[in-house]
């Protein structure tokens, strides 16, 4: 599997470590009224689709950046790769 890093170009899968669904970017507000429920769903429940999946990969043996990769879990075809920092900022997260 080859991941086309936005800055570094195509890189072998072995340079990366997988985390999971990119929904992990949206950490709930711990002070929300229903924080308990939100955190239960955030930490433990997953969509786990057979098809397009947005997921977080860590370029551990490269530039150590985090990426949001859009990949089909049935064919393993990757259709999009973005820097996670760009995605998070677009979603209004981070400073």
């Amino acid at each position, binding site marked *: 599997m080859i991941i086309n890093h936005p*800055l570094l170009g*195509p890189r*072998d899968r072995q340079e990366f470590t997988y985390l999971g669904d990119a929904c992990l970017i949206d950490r709930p507000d711990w002070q929300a009224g229903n924080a308990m429920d939100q955190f239960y769903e955030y930490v433990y429940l997953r969509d786990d689709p057979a098809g397009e999946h947005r997921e977080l990969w860590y370029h551990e*043996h490269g*530039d150590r950046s985090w990426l949001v990769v859009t990949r089909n879990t049935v064919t393993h075809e990757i259709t999009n790769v973005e*820097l996670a920092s760009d995605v998070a900022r677009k979603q209004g997260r981070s*400073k």
Partner: protein
Amino acid sequence: MLDLQSITPLWGETPRVDRFNGLTITEVPNRALASLALRRGREDEGRKAAEAMLGLALPAVGKHAAAGSYAASWFAQDQWLISAEIPEHELMSYQLADAVEGLASVTEQTDGWCRFDLEGACRGVFERLSGVNLAAMEPGSATRALLEHLSCVIICFETASHYAVLGPRSYAGSLHHALETAARSAL
């Protein structure tokens, strides 16, 4: 007062040199190393201050620049690995930290890495050890990649014939063994 002599990452009193059929692998100790990371919001000022002290332009993605006594390899976004030969540069990280105070973070890296320079028929060695796209590396480029399961920095001085490989110092023996084995197999 004791006169302490430093040893190389391979525990030698002198740097190791291995010759193969058309390739030389040389252990390169005695480099001051520091990582430089620009701070958010002060990137432009930090870059200017660092470049003024180092006397070179901090290179773009995947590049390596050298001028005078200093060299810089692109390490990550807004991060570089700075190096210099040791004799006058033992305190390089402190000088750099002073120069960029408040604008960037500097981490002392000297002796955290080991370095092996490969000169000669290098291609076969890298093909056996790494998935990095060697053909795409022009002189003056640097990349971080896996070499035989080890996280390394590869700097290209001359395409196909002169590279430096930096790896974690505690893996010096493993890295050297991997390079040696690949060289023997390839040449």
